[in-house]
Protein backbone atom coordinates (compact mmCIF):
# COMPACT_ATOMS: atom_id res chain seq x y z
CA UNK A 1 0.00 0.00 0.00
CA UNK A 2 1.46 3.30 -1.11
CA UNK A 3 -0.27 6.32 0.31
CA UNK A 4 0.60 9.83 1.37
CA UNK A 5 -0.50 9.39 4.96
CA UNK A 6 1.01 9.37 8.41
CA UNK A 7 -0.91 6.30 9.54
CA UNK A 8 -4.10 4.50 8.71
CA UNK A 9 -5.47 5.52 12.09
CA UNK A 10 -4.96 9.25 11.56
CA UNK A 11 -5.69 9.67 7.85
CA UNK A 12 -9.17 11.11 8.36
CA UNK A 13 -8.25 13.53 11.13
CA UNK A 14 -5.02 14.58 9.40
CA UNK A 15 -6.96 15.33 6.23
CA UNK A 16 -9.53 17.26 8.25
CA UNK A 17 -6.75 19.33 9.77
CA UNK A 18 -5.59 20.03 6.22
CA UNK A 19 -9.10 21.08 5.21
CA UNK A 20 -9.24 23.38 8.23
CA UNK A 21 -5.88 24.94 7.35
CA UNK A 22 -6.71 25.34 3.66
CA UNK A 23 -10.21 26.79 3.87
CA UNK A 24 -10.86 29.71 6.21
CA UNK A 25 -14.48 29.60 5.01
CA UNK A 26 -14.91 26.30 6.83
CA UNK A 27 -15.00 25.58 10.55
CA UNK A 28 -13.71 22.12 11.25
CA UNK A 29 -14.26 20.28 14.51
CA UNK A 30 -11.53 17.75 13.98
CA UNK A 31 -12.16 15.65 17.06
CA UNK A 32 -15.87 15.24 16.46
CA UNK A 33 -15.44 15.26 12.68
CA UNK A 34 -17.91 17.94 11.75
CA UNK A 35 -17.31 20.55 9.04
CA UNK A 36 -19.52 23.64 9.04
CA UNK A 37 -19.45 27.07 7.44
CA UNK A 38 -17.34 29.42 9.54
CA UNK A 39 -20.08 32.00 9.21
CA UNK A 40 -22.34 29.75 11.29
CA UNK A 41 -26.00 28.96 10.68
CA UNK A 42 -28.12 31.30 8.58
CA UNK A 43 -31.19 32.41 10.55
CA UNK A 44 -34.41 31.38 8.86
CA UNK A 45 -32.66 29.18 6.31
CA UNK A 46 -33.11 25.44 6.15
CA UNK A 47 -29.82 23.82 7.16
CA UNK A 48 -28.33 21.12 4.92
CA UNK A 49 -26.35 18.34 6.57
CA UNK A 50 -24.74 15.55 4.67
CA UNK A 51 -22.33 12.88 5.67
CA UNK A 52 -20.88 9.55 4.78
CA UNK A 53 -17.70 7.61 4.90
CA UNK A 54 -14.44 9.37 4.07
CA UNK A 55 -12.51 8.49 0.94
CA UNK A 56 -14.98 10.18 -1.42
CA UNK A 57 -13.43 13.65 -1.34
CA UNK A 58 -14.35 16.34 -2.25
CA UNK A 59 -17.72 14.85 -1.18
CA UNK A 60 -19.01 16.02 1.30
CA UNK A 61 -16.74 18.50 3.08
CA UNK A 62 -15.73 20.15 -0.20
CA UNK A 63 -19.36 21.08 -0.78
CA UNK A 64 -19.86 23.02 2.43
CA UNK A 65 -20.40 26.70 1.73
CA UNK A 66 -22.77 29.26 0.34
CA UNK A 67 -25.36 27.72 -1.94
CA UNK A 68 -24.72 24.14 -0.97
CA UNK A 69 -24.23 22.36 2.38
CA UNK A 70 -24.18 23.85 5.86
CA UNK A 71 -22.36 20.90 7.36
CA UNK A 72 -20.72 17.62 6.50
CA UNK A 73 -19.96 14.68 8.78
CA UNK A 74 -17.14 12.52 7.48
CA UNK A 75 -16.95 9.01 8.88
CA UNK A 76 -13.96 6.75 8.90
CA UNK A 77 -12.84 5.67 5.44
CA UNK A 78 -15.83 4.06 3.69
CA UNK A 79 -17.72 3.84 6.97
CA UNK A 80 -20.77 5.93 7.59
CA UNK A 81 -20.43 8.49 10.35
CA UNK A 82 -22.07 7.98 13.73
CA UNK A 83 -25.25 9.58 15.07
CA UNK A 84 -23.29 11.81 17.48
CA UNK A 85 -21.60 13.61 14.59
CA UNK A 86 -24.84 14.03 12.71
CA UNK A 87 -26.61 15.34 15.79
CA UNK A 88 -23.83 17.82 16.50
CA UNK A 89 -23.94 19.00 12.88
CA UNK A 90 -27.72 19.25 12.91
CA UNK A 91 -27.67 21.37 16.03
CA UNK A 92 -24.87 23.56 14.70
CA UNK A 93 -26.62 24.46 11.46
CA UNK A 94 -30.16 24.81 12.67
CA UNK A 95 -31.23 28.32 11.81
CA UNK A 96 -34.74 27.71 13.09
CA UNK A 97 -36.19 26.50 9.80
CA UNK A 98 -35.35 22.83 10.20
CA UNK A 99 -32.61 20.68 8.76
CA UNK A 100 -32.39 18.50 5.66
CA UNK A 101 -30.35 15.32 5.97
CA UNK A 102 -28.84 14.24 2.66
CA UNK A 103 -28.35 10.50 3.05
CA UNK A 104 -26.84 8.12 0.53
CA UNK A 105 -28.75 4.86 0.46
CA UNK A 106 -26.51 2.44 2.29
CA UNK A 107 -27.74 0.49 5.29
CA UNK A 108 -25.14 2.11 7.52
CA UNK A 109 -25.81 5.65 6.41
CA UNK A 110 -29.56 5.22 6.62
CA UNK A 111 -29.50 3.66 10.10
CA UNK A 112 -27.10 6.18 11.60
CA UNK A 113 -28.92 9.18 10.13
CA UNK A 114 -32.20 7.71 11.32
CA UNK A 115 -30.88 7.52 14.87
CA UNK A 116 -29.53 11.05 14.61
CA UNK A 117 -32.84 12.38 13.32
CA UNK A 118 -34.66 10.84 16.28
CA UNK A 119 -32.21 12.43 18.69
CA UNK A 120 -32.50 15.83 16.94
CA UNK A 121 -36.26 15.69 17.01
CA UNK A 122 -36.07 14.89 20.72
CA UNK A 123 -34.27 18.20 21.00
CA UNK A 124 -37.00 19.98 19.05
CA UNK A 125 -35.27 20.30 15.66
CA UNK A 126 -37.37 19.41 12.67
CA UNK A 127 -35.49 17.07 10.36
CA UNK A 128 -36.37 15.83 6.88
CA UNK A 129 -34.25 13.19 5.22
CA UNK A 130 -33.68 12.72 1.50
CA UNK A 131 -32.28 9.31 0.66
CA UNK A 132 -30.29 9.37 -2.56
CA UNK A 133 -30.44 6.14 -4.57
CA UNK A 134 -29.38 6.78 -8.13
CA UNK A 135 -27.06 3.88 -8.98
CA UNK A 136 -28.73 1.74 -11.63
CA UNK A 137 -26.09 -0.96 -11.31
CA UNK A 138 -28.13 -2.29 -8.41
CA UNK A 139 -31.69 -3.39 -8.99
CA UNK A 140 -34.05 -1.65 -6.61
CA UNK A 141 -35.99 -4.70 -5.57
CA UNK A 142 -36.92 -7.04 -2.77
CA UNK A 143 -33.60 -8.75 -3.37
CA UNK A 144 -31.34 -5.86 -2.49
CA UNK A 145 -30.88 -3.08 0.04
CA UNK A 146 -32.04 -0.85 -2.80
CA UNK A 147 -30.11 1.23 -5.27
CA UNK A 148 -26.99 2.90 -3.91
CA UNK A 149 -26.52 6.62 -3.55
CA UNK A 150 -23.68 7.89 -5.73
CA UNK A 151 -23.21 10.82 -8.13
CA UNK A 152 -26.70 12.28 -7.79
CA UNK A 153 -25.71 13.28 -4.27
CA UNK A 154 -23.69 16.14 -5.76
CA UNK A 155 -26.72 17.33 -7.73
CA UNK A 156 -29.03 17.03 -4.74
CA UNK A 157 -26.67 18.97 -2.51
CA UNK A 158 -26.18 21.73 -5.09
CA UNK A 159 -29.80 22.18 -6.07
CA UNK A 160 -31.37 21.77 -2.64
CA UNK A 161 -28.64 24.05 -1.29
CA UNK A 162 -29.56 26.75 -3.79
CA UNK A 163 -33.24 26.49 -2.91
CA UNK A 164 -32.51 26.66 0.81
CA UNK A 165 -30.46 29.78 0.18
CA UNK A 166 -33.65 31.34 -1.23
CA UNK A 167 -35.33 30.75 2.14
CA UNK A 168 -37.68 28.02 0.94
CA UNK A 169 -39.30 26.03 3.76
CA UNK A 170 -38.06 22.57 4.74
CA UNK A 171 -40.89 20.70 3.02
CA UNK A 172 -40.15 22.39 -0.26
CA UNK A 173 -36.39 21.90 -0.02
CA UNK A 174 -36.91 18.22 0.80
CA UNK A 175 -39.37 17.79 -2.06
CA UNK A 176 -36.96 19.34 -4.56
CA UNK A 177 -34.10 17.25 -3.21
CA UNK A 178 -36.19 14.13 -3.76
CA UNK A 179 -37.19 15.31 -7.21
CA UNK A 180 -33.55 15.71 -8.20
CA UNK A 181 -32.86 12.21 -6.94
CA UNK A 182 -35.80 10.77 -8.85
CA UNK A 183 -34.67 12.45 -12.04
CA UNK A 184 -31.07 11.20 -11.72
CA UNK A 185 -29.33 7.94 -12.48
CA UNK A 186 -25.69 6.85 -12.29
CA UNK A 187 -23.45 4.01 -13.38
CA UNK A 188 -19.82 3.43 -12.38
CA UNK A 189 -16.91 1.53 -13.88
CA UNK A 190 -13.65 0.52 -12.20
CA UNK A 191 -10.36 -0.14 -13.93
CA UNK A 192 -8.54 -0.82 -10.68
CA UNK A 193 -9.40 -1.46 -7.06
CA UNK A 194 -8.81 0.89 -4.19
CA UNK A 195 -7.08 0.14 -0.91
CA UNK A 196 -8.71 1.04 2.39
CA UNK A 197 -5.78 2.37 4.47
CA UNK A 198 -6.65 0.32 7.55
CA UNK A 199 -7.06 -2.82 5.43
CA UNK A 200 -3.69 -2.32 3.74
CA UNK A 201 -4.43 -4.27 0.59
CA UNK A 202 -6.69 -3.83 -2.44
CA UNK A 203 -10.36 -4.54 -1.81
CA UNK A 204 -10.58 -6.66 -4.94
CA UNK A 205 -8.35 -7.89 -7.73
CA UNK A 206 -8.82 -7.15 -11.39
CA UNK A 207 -6.43 -8.52 -13.90
CA UNK A 208 -4.72 -6.36 -16.49
CA UNK A 209 -7.44 -6.75 -19.07
CA UNK A 210 -10.49 -6.70 -16.84
CA UNK A 211 -12.83 -3.98 -15.65
CA UNK A 212 -15.70 -4.01 -13.17
CA UNK A 213 -19.00 -2.71 -14.53
CA UNK A 214 -21.41 -1.21 -12.03
CA UNK A 215 -18.82 -0.59 -9.33
CA UNK A 216 -19.96 1.10 -6.13
CA UNK A 217 -18.13 3.98 -4.52
CA UNK A 218 -16.71 1.80 -1.74
CA UNK A 219 -15.12 -0.78 -3.96
CA UNK A 220 -18.21 -2.95 -3.69
CA UNK A 221 -18.17 -5.14 -6.75
CA UNK A 222 -20.78 -4.33 -9.36
CA UNK A 223 -22.88 -6.11 -11.92
CA UNK A 224 -20.22 -8.02 -13.76
CA UNK A 225 -16.67 -8.14 -14.97
CA UNK A 226 -15.92 -7.44 -18.57
CA UNK A 227 -12.81 -7.26 -20.72
CA UNK A 228 -11.13 -3.87 -20.96
CA UNK A 229 -12.63 -2.08 -23.95
CA UNK A 230 -12.46 1.29 -25.64
CA UNK A 231 -13.74 4.38 -23.88
CA UNK A 232 -16.54 4.42 -26.44
CA UNK A 233 -17.73 0.90 -25.64
CA UNK A 234 -17.40 1.29 -21.90
CA UNK A 235 -19.31 4.56 -21.98
CA UNK A 236 -22.02 2.96 -24.10
CA UNK A 237 -22.37 0.15 -21.56
CA UNK A 238 -22.81 2.71 -18.77
CA UNK A 239 -25.34 4.79 -20.67
CA UNK A 240 -27.23 1.74 -21.92
CA UNK A 241 -27.68 0.75 -18.28
CA UNK A 242 -28.92 4.22 -17.38
CA UNK A 243 -31.14 4.44 -20.45
CA UNK A 244 -32.77 1.13 -19.58
CA UNK A 245 -33.95 2.74 -16.35
CA UNK A 246 -34.80 6.31 -17.36
CA UNK A 247 -35.56 7.90 -20.71
CA UNK A 248 -32.55 9.87 -21.93
CA UNK A 249 -34.39 12.78 -23.45
CA UNK A 250 -34.72 16.51 -22.99
CA UNK A 251 -32.29 18.82 -21.25
CA UNK A 252 -29.71 16.90 -19.29
CA UNK A 253 -27.25 17.70 -16.56
CA UNK A 254 -24.38 15.24 -16.93
CA UNK A 255 -21.47 14.57 -14.63
CA UNK A 256 -18.49 12.53 -15.74
CA UNK A 257 -16.86 11.83 -12.43
CA UNK A 258 -13.42 10.42 -11.76
CA UNK A 259 -13.01 7.74 -9.11
CA UNK A 260 -9.89 9.40 -7.70
CA UNK A 261 -7.06 7.84 -9.67
CA UNK A 262 -8.16 8.67 -13.19
CA UNK A 263 -6.50 11.62 -14.89
CA UNK A 264 -8.60 14.42 -16.29
CA UNK A 265 -7.47 13.72 -19.85
CA UNK A 266 -9.28 10.37 -19.66
CA UNK A 267 -12.38 11.94 -18.14
CA UNK A 268 -12.57 14.30 -21.10
CA UNK A 269 -12.23 11.35 -23.47
CA UNK A 270 -15.19 9.76 -21.68
CA UNK A 271 -17.15 13.01 -21.68
CA UNK A 272 -16.69 13.20 -25.43
CA UNK A 273 -18.17 9.72 -25.76
CA UNK A 274 -21.07 10.57 -23.46
CA UNK A 275 -21.74 13.64 -25.54
CA UNK A 276 -21.71 11.67 -28.80
CA UNK A 277 -23.92 8.94 -27.39
CA UNK A 278 -26.54 11.31 -26.06
CA UNK A 279 -26.46 13.62 -29.07
CA UNK A 280 -27.04 10.54 -31.22
CA UNK A 281 -30.25 9.91 -29.29
CA UNK A 282 -31.52 13.45 -29.56
CA UNK A 283 -30.85 14.45 -25.96
CA UNK A 284 -29.13 17.71 -25.11
CA UNK A 285 -26.53 18.15 -22.39
CA UNK A 286 -27.22 21.66 -21.19
CA UNK A 287 -25.07 21.55 -18.05
CA UNK A 288 -22.10 19.39 -17.17
CA UNK A 289 -19.35 18.62 -14.70
CA UNK A 290 -16.16 16.79 -15.63
CA UNK A 291 -13.79 16.00 -12.79
CA UNK A 292 -13.35 14.32 -9.43
CA UNK A 293 -16.45 14.97 -7.35
CA UNK A 294 -17.32 11.71 -5.60
CA UNK A 295 -14.35 9.42 -5.47
CA UNK A 296 -13.26 6.03 -4.14
CA UNK A 297 -9.80 6.74 -2.78
CA UNK A 298 -7.24 6.06 -5.54
CA UNK A 299 -9.48 3.84 -7.67
CA UNK A 300 -9.13 4.28 -11.44
CA UNK A 301 -12.43 4.49 -13.23
CA UNK A 302 -15.35 6.82 -13.66
CA UNK A 303 -19.03 7.18 -13.13
CA UNK A 304 -21.54 9.00 -15.22
CA UNK A 305 -24.60 10.63 -13.68
CA UNK A 306 -27.47 11.99 -15.71
CA UNK A 307 -30.20 14.26 -14.35
CA UNK A 308 -33.22 15.26 -16.42
CA UNK A 309 -33.46 18.97 -15.82
CA UNK A 310 -36.54 21.14 -15.64
CA UNK A 311 -36.29 24.91 -16.03
CA UNK A 312 -36.57 25.31 -12.29
CA UNK A 313 -33.80 22.82 -11.64
CA UNK A 314 -31.58 24.48 -14.25
CA UNK A 315 -32.12 27.81 -12.58
CA UNK A 316 -31.19 26.36 -9.20
CA UNK A 317 -28.15 24.65 -10.70
CA UNK A 318 -26.98 27.98 -12.10
CA UNK A 319 -27.45 29.83 -8.81
CA UNK A 320 -24.25 31.05 -7.16
CA UNK A 321 -22.26 28.52 -5.19
CA UNK A 322 -19.10 29.08 -3.22
CA UNK A 323 -17.54 25.96 -1.80
CA UNK A 324 -14.01 24.56 -2.03
CA UNK A 325 -14.96 22.10 -4.77
CA UNK A 326 -17.78 23.84 -6.64
CA UNK A 327 -17.75 27.54 -7.21
CA UNK A 328 -19.42 29.93 -9.57
CA UNK A 329 -21.32 33.19 -9.57
CA UNK A 330 -19.35 34.69 -6.68
Amino acid sequence: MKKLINSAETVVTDALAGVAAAHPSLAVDIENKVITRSAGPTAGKVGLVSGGGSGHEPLHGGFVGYGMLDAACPGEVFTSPVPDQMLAATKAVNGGAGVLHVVKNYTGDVLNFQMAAELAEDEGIEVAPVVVNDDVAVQDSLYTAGRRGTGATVFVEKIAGALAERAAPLGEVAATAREVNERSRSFGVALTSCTVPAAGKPTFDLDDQEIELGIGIHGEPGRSRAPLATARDITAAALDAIGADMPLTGDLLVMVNGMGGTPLIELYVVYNEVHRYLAGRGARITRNLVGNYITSLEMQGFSVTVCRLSDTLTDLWDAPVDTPALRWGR
Partner: protein
Amino acid sequence: MDAGFFRAWVAEITAVVETQRDHLTQLDAAIGDADHGINLARGFGAVETALAQASTPTPGSVLRLTGATLISKVGGASGPLYGTAFRQAGKALGDGAEVDLSTLAGALEAALSGVQKLGAAREGEKTMVDALAPAASALSKAVAEGASAADAFAALADAAGAGAQATISMQALKGRASYLGPRSVGHEDPGAASTALILGALRDVAARQAR
Protein backbone atom coordinates in the same frame (compact mmCIF):
# COMPACT_ATOMS: atom_id res chain seq x y z
CA MET B 1 -23.62 -13.98 36.46
CA ASP B 2 -22.61 -10.56 37.76
CA ALA B 3 -21.30 -7.37 36.19
CA GLY B 4 -17.75 -8.78 36.34
CA PHE B 5 -18.82 -11.71 34.22
CA PHE B 6 -20.23 -9.40 31.56
CA ARG B 7 -17.18 -7.17 31.65
CA ALA B 8 -15.06 -10.27 31.13
CA TRP B 9 -17.25 -11.20 28.17
CA VAL B 10 -16.82 -7.79 26.59
CA ALA B 11 -13.07 -7.90 27.23
CA GLU B 12 -12.94 -11.31 25.56
CA ILE B 13 -14.88 -9.93 22.55
CA THR B 14 -12.42 -7.05 22.35
CA ALA B 15 -9.50 -9.46 22.26
CA VAL B 16 -11.09 -11.81 19.74
CA VAL B 17 -12.17 -8.98 17.45
CA GLU B 18 -8.65 -7.62 17.53
CA THR B 19 -7.06 -10.96 16.54
CA GLN B 20 -9.77 -11.61 13.94
CA ARG B 21 -9.74 -8.04 12.64
CA ASP B 22 -8.09 -8.82 9.32
CA HIS B 23 -10.09 -11.97 8.83
CA LEU B 24 -13.38 -10.10 9.25
CA THR B 25 -12.16 -7.32 7.00
CA GLN B 26 -11.23 -9.80 4.32
CA LEU B 27 -14.66 -11.41 4.50
CA ASP B 28 -16.08 -7.91 4.01
CA ALA B 29 -13.69 -7.22 1.12
CA ALA B 30 -15.15 -10.17 -0.74
CA ILE B 31 -18.76 -9.02 -0.63
CA GLY B 32 -18.72 -5.58 0.99
CA ASP B 33 -16.34 -2.72 1.52
CA ALA B 34 -13.48 -4.18 3.51
CA ASP B 35 -14.07 -2.50 6.84
CA HIS B 36 -16.02 -4.82 9.12
CA GLY B 37 -13.04 -5.95 11.19
CA ILE B 38 -11.73 -2.41 11.34
CA ASN B 39 -15.12 -1.13 12.47
CA LEU B 40 -15.51 -3.67 15.25
CA ALA B 41 -11.92 -3.30 16.44
CA ARG B 42 -12.43 0.46 16.68
CA GLY B 43 -15.79 -0.01 18.40
CA PHE B 44 -14.73 -2.54 21.01
CA GLY B 45 -11.53 -0.61 21.61
CA ALA B 46 -13.74 2.35 22.53
CA VAL B 47 -15.94 0.11 24.64
CA GLU B 48 -12.92 -1.04 26.61
CA THR B 49 -12.02 2.58 27.34
CA ALA B 50 -15.61 3.46 28.23
CA LEU B 51 -15.95 0.51 30.62
CA ALA B 52 -12.67 1.40 32.27
CA GLN B 53 -13.84 4.93 32.90
CA ALA B 54 -17.49 4.49 33.92
CA SER B 55 -18.99 2.62 36.82
CA THR B 56 -21.11 -0.28 35.60
CA PRO B 57 -22.31 -2.05 38.70
CA THR B 58 -24.88 -4.31 37.02
CA PRO B 59 -24.87 -6.70 34.05
CA GLY B 60 -27.50 -4.51 32.38
CA SER B 61 -25.40 -1.38 32.75
CA VAL B 62 -22.37 -3.13 31.21
CA LEU B 63 -24.30 -4.08 28.10
CA ARG B 64 -26.11 -0.75 27.83
CA LEU B 65 -22.84 1.16 27.94
CA THR B 66 -21.37 -1.27 25.43
CA GLY B 67 -24.29 -0.68 23.09
CA ALA B 68 -24.27 3.09 23.44
CA THR B 69 -20.53 3.19 22.82
CA LEU B 70 -20.81 1.04 19.71
CA ILE B 71 -23.50 3.36 18.35
CA SER B 72 -21.27 6.37 19.04
CA LYS B 73 -18.06 4.95 17.68
CA VAL B 74 -18.59 2.37 14.97
CA GLY B 75 -20.74 3.85 12.25
CA GLY B 76 -21.54 1.73 9.19
CA ALA B 77 -24.32 -0.82 9.30
CA SER B 78 -22.84 -2.84 12.12
CA GLY B 79 -22.55 0.11 14.52
CA PRO B 80 -26.25 0.82 14.96
CA LEU B 81 -27.14 -2.87 14.68
CA TYR B 82 -24.68 -4.23 17.25
CA GLY B 83 -25.21 -1.12 19.34
CA THR B 84 -28.93 -1.77 19.39
CA ALA B 85 -28.37 -5.46 20.10
CA PHE B 86 -26.29 -4.73 23.20
CA ARG B 87 -28.54 -1.92 24.35
CA GLN B 88 -31.69 -3.98 24.03
CA ALA B 89 -30.04 -6.92 25.75
CA GLY B 90 -28.90 -4.60 28.52
CA LYS B 91 -32.38 -3.21 28.92
CA ALA B 92 -33.81 -6.72 29.13
CA LEU B 93 -31.30 -7.60 31.85
CA GLY B 94 -32.75 -4.82 33.96
CA ASP B 95 -30.96 -3.48 37.02
CA GLY B 96 -30.27 -6.59 39.06
CA ALA B 97 -26.76 -7.29 40.29
CA GLU B 98 -26.98 -10.91 39.16
CA VAL B 99 -28.74 -12.48 36.20
CA ASP B 100 -29.54 -16.12 35.53
CA LEU B 101 -29.40 -18.11 32.30
CA SER B 102 -33.07 -17.66 31.57
CA THR B 103 -32.87 -13.88 31.88
CA LEU B 104 -29.86 -13.95 29.58
CA ALA B 105 -31.80 -16.02 27.06
CA GLY B 106 -34.55 -13.40 27.16
CA ALA B 107 -31.95 -10.67 26.65
CA LEU B 108 -30.62 -12.40 23.54
CA GLU B 109 -34.14 -12.61 22.17
CA ALA B 110 -34.49 -8.88 22.88
CA ALA B 111 -31.22 -8.22 21.08
CA LEU B 112 -32.44 -10.16 18.08
CA SER B 113 -35.73 -8.34 17.95
CA GLY B 114 -33.94 -4.98 18.25
CA VAL B 115 -31.70 -5.85 15.32
CA GLN B 116 -34.61 -7.02 13.23
CA LYS B 117 -36.72 -3.99 14.02
CA LEU B 118 -33.91 -1.64 12.99
CA GLY B 119 -32.49 -3.52 10.02
CA ALA B 120 -35.62 -5.36 8.85
CA ALA B 121 -33.63 -8.47 8.01
CA ARG B 122 -35.22 -11.88 8.27
CA GLU B 123 -33.42 -15.18 8.59
CA GLY B 124 -31.96 -16.41 5.32
CA GLU B 125 -31.02 -12.96 4.06
CA LYS B 126 -27.31 -13.41 4.82
CA THR B 127 -26.80 -11.07 7.74
CA MET B 128 -25.83 -11.23 11.38
CA VAL B 129 -29.43 -12.30 12.00
CA ASP B 130 -28.55 -15.70 10.56
CA ALA B 131 -26.12 -16.27 13.42
CA LEU B 132 -28.02 -14.43 16.12
CA ALA B 133 -31.45 -15.97 15.58
CA PRO B 134 -30.48 -19.65 15.81
CA ALA B 135 -28.17 -18.85 18.72
CA ALA B 136 -30.93 -17.13 20.66
CA SER B 137 -33.30 -20.06 19.97
CA ALA B 138 -30.68 -22.58 21.00
CA LEU B 139 -30.09 -20.84 24.31
CA SER B 140 -33.81 -20.51 25.02
CA LYS B 141 -34.29 -24.16 24.18
CA ALA B 142 -31.40 -25.28 26.39
CA VAL B 143 -32.76 -23.23 29.26
CA ALA B 144 -36.26 -24.65 28.74
CA GLU B 145 -34.81 -28.15 28.75
CA GLY B 146 -32.92 -27.44 31.94
CA ALA B 147 -29.48 -27.88 30.39
CA SER B 148 -26.35 -27.09 32.40
CA ALA B 149 -24.81 -23.66 31.92
CA ALA B 150 -21.89 -25.24 30.08
CA ASP B 151 -24.17 -27.12 27.71
CA ALA B 152 -26.40 -24.09 27.20
CA PHE B 153 -23.48 -21.84 26.26
CA ALA B 154 -22.05 -24.53 24.01
CA ALA B 155 -25.40 -24.87 22.25
CA LEU B 156 -25.56 -21.10 21.86
CA ALA B 157 -22.07 -20.79 20.36
CA ASP B 158 -22.46 -23.84 18.15
CA ALA B 159 -25.71 -22.55 16.75
CA ALA B 160 -24.15 -19.16 16.03
CA GLY B 161 -21.19 -20.80 14.31
CA ALA B 162 -23.41 -23.07 12.26
CA GLY B 163 -25.61 -20.12 11.38
CA ALA B 164 -22.61 -18.14 10.19
CA GLN B 165 -21.43 -21.09 8.11
CA ALA B 166 -24.87 -21.42 6.61
CA THR B 167 -24.64 -17.89 5.23
CA ILE B 168 -22.01 -19.11 2.77
CA SER B 169 -24.59 -20.66 0.50
CA MET B 170 -27.08 -17.81 0.84
CA GLN B 171 -27.67 -14.94 -1.52
CA ALA B 172 -27.56 -11.64 0.37
CA LEU B 173 -30.82 -9.71 0.38
CA LYS B 174 -29.82 -7.07 2.90
CA GLY B 175 -26.80 -4.83 3.41
CA ARG B 176 -24.00 -4.07 1.03
CA ALA B 177 -23.55 -7.68 -0.08
CA SER B 178 -27.02 -7.65 -1.62
CA TYR B 179 -25.68 -5.40 -4.42
CA LEU B 180 -23.83 -8.43 -5.67
CA GLY B 181 -26.96 -10.46 -6.23
CA PRO B 182 -26.07 -14.09 -6.99
CA ARG B 183 -22.35 -13.23 -6.83
CA SER B 184 -22.71 -12.98 -3.04
CA VAL B 185 -23.21 -16.74 -2.86
CA GLY B 186 -20.13 -18.67 -1.74
CA HIS B 187 -18.89 -16.17 0.84
CA GLU B 188 -19.49 -16.09 4.59
CA ASP B 189 -21.29 -12.97 5.77
CA PRO B 190 -18.87 -10.87 7.84
CA GLY B 191 -21.55 -9.79 10.34
CA ALA B 192 -22.69 -13.36 10.87
CA ALA B 193 -19.07 -14.33 11.35
CA SER B 194 -18.52 -11.63 13.96
CA THR B 195 -21.72 -12.62 15.75
CA ALA B 196 -20.38 -16.15 15.97
CA LEU B 197 -17.15 -14.78 17.43
CA ILE B 198 -19.02 -12.65 19.95
CA LEU B 199 -21.14 -15.55 21.14
CA GLY B 200 -18.15 -17.90 21.07
CA ALA B 201 -16.47 -15.43 23.41
CA LEU B 202 -19.45 -15.77 25.76
CA ARG B 203 -19.07 -19.55 25.88
CA ASP B 204 -15.32 -19.27 26.46
CA VAL B 205 -15.68 -16.77 29.28
CA ALA B 206 -18.37 -18.88 30.91
CA ALA B 207 -16.16 -21.95 30.68
CA ARG B 208 -13.24 -20.08 32.23
CA GLN B 209 -15.32 -18.73 35.09
CA ALA B 210 -16.77 -22.19 35.80
CA ARG B 211 -13.28 -23.58 36.40
